[in-house]
């Protein structure tokens, strides 16, 4: 007679394997944002470089846009910067900047040196606007839909691959939303 208890070690092993397999793909650095599908927090930031009239949450309504969080002290931002410049030129999607926990002089010097992909850049020296967005580090990029709700958050530098696999399908879907 085949006793069921003989199967217990096998079942336990299968359970363990399933758990470990799940953990492999479960990166704690990619914390889910609680703000997905919620309206952007309200903010009103001074312009970083004085070239625009500052940046508040009312500027974000009316179209699908990217909000990119960056800082001059952040190496990952330097890495993704050419990608942002390219997107600003070719993708047609408006990119807004949030200069996070950075001094205005450092931030604007950094933008002047590397070029600005942003339509508007707000200075968030105390970092509070970033905290309202649930920012855990820089760079971080949010997709905001035409009603001003946050639809996606990507922590880490943007690359061609990330753009193709994660952003483009979403943007396509968002643009077809009426």
């Amino acid at each position, binding site marked *: 007679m085949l006793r069921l208890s003989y199967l217990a070690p096998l079942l336990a092993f299968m359970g363990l394997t399933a758990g470990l397999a799940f953990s492999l793909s479960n990166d*704690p*650095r990619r*914390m*889910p*944002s*609680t*703000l997905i599908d919620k309206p952007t927090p309200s903010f009103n930031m001074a312009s970083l470089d004085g070239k625009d009239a500052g940046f508040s949450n009312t500027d974000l309504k009316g179209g699908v846009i990217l909000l990119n969080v960056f800082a001059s002290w952040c190496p990952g931002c330097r890495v993704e910067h050419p990608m942002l410049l390219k997107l600003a030129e070719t993708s047609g999607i408006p990119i807004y900047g949030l200069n996070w*926990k950075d001094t205005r002089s450092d931030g604007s010097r950094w933008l002047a040196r590397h070029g600005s992909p942003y339509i508007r850049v707000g200075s968030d020296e*105390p*970092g*509070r606007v970033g*905290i*309202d*967005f*649930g920012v*855990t*580090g820089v760079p971080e990029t949010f997709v905001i839909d035409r009603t001003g709700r946050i639809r996606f958050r990507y922590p880490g530098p943007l690359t061609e691959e990330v753009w193709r696999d994660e952003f483009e399908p979403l943007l396509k879907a968002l643009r077809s939303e009426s």
Partner: protein
Amino acid sequence: MTQPQLTRLALCAALLVSTVLVSPSRAVLPEEMLKDERLEGRARVLSQELRCVVCQNQSIDDSNAPLAHDLRVLLRERLLAGDSDRQAVDFIVARYGNFVLLKPPLQWNTVLLWLGPLLALLVAIIGFGRYVRGAAANASAAARTPALNADELKAIEAILDRRSSV
């Protein structure tokens, strides 16, 4: 014991006690602290239960990360503004999610986390019970087995003798 020996012993004891008494260093800076000791005490307790989102296995009370500093200050501002403990923590949870709670709330997706140890204990108790009952059944079965009679014993001895003589 001689006098120097006693002194040395006392010194060793004092060192040993001091290692126990010294509290682990925290990241909280003096200028972050609130003047109101009761509020500061509440802030310390709350910030020990909030996870730093940069160095994820530390609380914001432990972490030296700049963002942890910002969150400590923010938490204290909320308390100063009259928030209850619950409201102040909820303020941060609204931005970073339940992920920042080092003690996760009991929800459907954390049930296994909370009840897992109990479940494991239950399985162990059941397994142990079955094992004990099985052992007792074996023992009583052995006791019921009739002893060998004289003829059988003789036959066995004969076999053993034959073997040892070879």
